[in-house]
Structure formats: C-alpha cells, structure tokens
C-alpha cells in the first residue's frame, strides 16, 4: 500500500488523526486513548500486516509525552510511524501493545523505567534498568540529578 492508501485507511478508522510526511516515514499522530484498536487493525489487516515493531520509544515534549511506534511489514515492506500523544504529564497512561507484538514487553518496561509511562494491562510492569527503589524518571526533561555537574 502506498502512503496515501494508508492515510485513507487510518482516517476511516480515526477521523481525528493527523499526518506528517515531512520526514522519512509517514507519521500518524493520534490520541493515546485511540491507540489499541488501530494497532490491532494495523497488525491484522491483510493489506497492511505490520508484523514487526522495530522501535518503541517516548519523547518528552515538556507539556505532553509522545509515544512513538515504528512499524514495518515484512510482507509488504512498508513503514509507518504511529505517535500517540499523552497529555497528562503527571500520571501518563496508555494501553500496552504487548498482546500484539511480544517485543513490546521489554521496550514498554524501558519506557516505564525512564519516562514513567504506565502501560495498562502490561503483564510485568517493573523497572528494567534502574533499582526498584529509584525515584524519578531519568529521561524526563524535568528530572533533577544531584550528581550532575553543569558544564
């Protein structure tokens, strides 16, 4: 499918979705509540079949958090970037995509560890890199590190 067809397909499911084609890939920006149904559709639809989630991360834009999912279809060889906007910075929550791509389990734990995004229905949501008693979310822009030396 070309980008235009994918756009049409997504618009049909989520009318509020906005698109950004300035970069290398087609970016689709949606609200965090709409994530799970469209992801399921992207994975299972025969013409799309995005079976490979190759990058899952989060960006802290200070006033909101942006979850970024890079998807690729091994069969059709097309790439799409889904961005889910989380507006609640103090208690960020989003549905997990573990059930769709198994690799998401570790990547979501990483995002939880470093950004504090809580993934609803995640099977094992613990800190992955830092100690369990660590305070704060290091990759947030408002994280204060006492050991940091300003250069």
């Amino acid at each position, binding site marked *: 499918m070309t980008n235009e067809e994918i756009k049409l397909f997504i618009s049909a499911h989520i009318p509020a979705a906005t698109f950004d084609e300035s*970069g290398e890939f087609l970016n689709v920006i949606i609200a965090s509540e709409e994530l799970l149904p469209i992801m399921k559709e992207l994975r299972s639809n025969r013409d799309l079949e995005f079976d490979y989630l190759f990058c899952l991360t989060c960006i802290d834009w200070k006033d909101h958090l942006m979850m970024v999912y890079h998807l690729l279809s091994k069969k059709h060889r097309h790439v799409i970037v889904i961005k889910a906007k989380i507006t609640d910075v103090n208690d960020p929550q989003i549905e997990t995509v573990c059930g769709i791509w198994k690799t998401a389990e570790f990547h979501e734990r990483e995002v939880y560890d470093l950004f504090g995004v809580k993934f609803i229905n995640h099977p094992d949501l613990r800190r992955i890199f830092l100690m369990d008693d660590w305070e704060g979310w290091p990759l947030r822009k408002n994280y204060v590190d006492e050991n940091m030396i300003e250069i």
Partner: protein
Amino acid sequence: MSLLGEDIVTEDGEFVINMGPQHPSTHGVLHLKIWLDGETIKRVQPHLGYIHRSIEKMSENLSYRNFIFATSRMDYLSAHINNEACALCVEKGLQIEATPRAQVIRILMAELTRLSSHQLWWGCTGLDLGAVTPFFYAFREREAIMEIMEETCGARLTMNYMVPGGVMYDIHPNFQKRVKDVMKQIKNNLHEYFEILTGNVIFENRTKGVGYLSKEDAISYGVTGPTGRASGVSCDVRKWFPYEGYDKVQFDEILDNCGDCYARYMVRMKEMDQSVSIIEQLIDNIPEGDFQTKTKNVIKLPKGEFYQRVETARGELGVFIVSDGAASPYRIKYRSPNFSNLSAIDHMARGAKIGDLIAIMATLDLVIPDIDR
C-alpha cells in the same frame, strides 16, 4: 554468586537459581533468574541494568560530533558500525552524503568489524560449551584485524573513526596490503574453525534442536541479525535498506529455517565468508578523493525526527534522533539489537536444560552494555 542468593527455595517449593550478574557465561553482567525443575528450566526472567550507563540521557548534553563516540561503548564488538549508524543519521539530518572514498572505507571497516566480532563470538561459543581451545584460535585472526584497525584508526577496540560526512583521517598506506594478507589468512584458517567445533559430535548434540525459535516468534519478538536470519526471517538491513552503497556490492543474505542454536551458529559462520567476499570486492577499488565532506564546526540539525538503521554484527541497530534545532539532540533513542534478541530468551529456554541455556545465550551472541545502554 549473586545478590539474590538467599532464596534457596521460594514459597511454592520451586528451585530458583540466579545466574549472574557475575557468571562466566552471561558475557558480562546479565542476571538471569531461573526457575528449575531438577535440571529442566521452567522459566527464565532476565534482570537488566547492571551496566545501564544512561548513554541516551548523556547524549542529550553532547554535541552532534561527540555523541557518536559514546556509542562505541554500547556494542563494543561492533563499535565501528555503531558509530557509522550515528554518523549516517546526522548526515541524513544535514542532507549530505559521505564522499565516495569515505563510503568505501566505511564499508571495509564495518565488514572487518563484523569479521572480528564473529570471530570473538565463535571463540566464546566454544568456551561456553566447554571447549577452551577455539577461543585461542579465534583470537589469532581477531588480533590480526585489530592490528589493522590500530594502524588506521589509532585504537584497537573503540575506534572512534567516524565523523559526520566521512571518516576522521585517511587510511594508512599499509592498509590495503595488510587487509589482503589478513583475508588470505582467514580464508586459509577458516576450515580449522569447522574442524575444531562444527563437525564435533558433542557440539552438534549440544546445539541441534536446542533453543528453537520459529519465524513468527522471531518477528514478533523483533529478533534481528544472524539470530533472526537463522529462524528464516529476512532481516539484513544491508539488503533491505541499503546504506553506504551496500547495494553496489555482491553478497548473499544467509538464511536458515531451522531456528535452533546450530542454525544460528552456521549462519554466522557463513556470514564470515560473505564479509570476506565484500572486503575482497572493495579492497582494490577504493576511489580516490577526499575522505571527508566539509561540514560546519558546530553541527545543528534542522527540526525534525531522523531514523537510521544499520546492520551490526548482532542485528538491526536503529538510531532515532529527535532534533529541536539546537546543537545537541533533543532526544536520542538507540534501538539496540541485543535488547530485542534477549527478550526471546524465556521463550527459547523453557523446557530446556541448564546446559542448553548456555548454548542459547552463546548463540544469541549477547553484548550486555548494548542491552542496558
């Protein structure tokens, strides 16, 4: 020897052992919690972060020239390829390309790195399975490659040879001759590798049918690199999304459908041949010209998001730069191959024996600092 050594038996009467953080076969500081039934593994739970050095956070404070070199310390066996990925990503943002000469040098260096990485892996696989001698044979060729690296880049392991727009300095005058010598040496000695390990009955028994990973699972777990290709997933970035002119050289993507440890082993062994072939195609055809494109002293990327992927010795490395127009990245994400590859370990090891887990870890070829970053 582990931090959680106290719970000999958990409440349910299960036997739990902690492999790592210090353990000879975890290749660093990976910590695996293993639920056992006799010798049979019921569940494996990886505990990470014993070498989490926060490279992503740190890179947010480094300039676009400097953050590249921190990545040498991620997957230190593919240090050069990691640097390449970052340099390419910055180039993508700047919309420039490395000079033709630099591109060929980059490919040559990347393939040499891949060869040395696979050799180390081969030696360590032997070591993990209890055969000590392969380790020394592997280092024989690895050291020869290291010497080439040292002569041209100035360092043995963390080369720091990449800059956005090319390479840091031109190759050493001896480079071509020495590379040819080493290629000859490797081609002559590769059969010894097969004689020592591959044909051994014990080795075959230890690896065949062990740690099976199906194609669907491999894709779902995001397993890439030789590990993914051994499960039949075509995932060589050099073929799929060619960079640096990989589309101009002839090489095969090695695929195997068995998905067991032996398949992973054979895929890597055959990849060494392919790397040798790539190097031989290019070594006499290094174009003349500049080794660096002129770039500004302070690099500033335009506002936007850039994603670059390369094929390291372990799989697909993705560099995701989010720029807000400043002199240092706003956010950097490294999609490291080992992190995804490791996530499949529980799936692969269930029902296997402790010895199988060692074989699985060995053939996954894990580099722990790349997982923790």
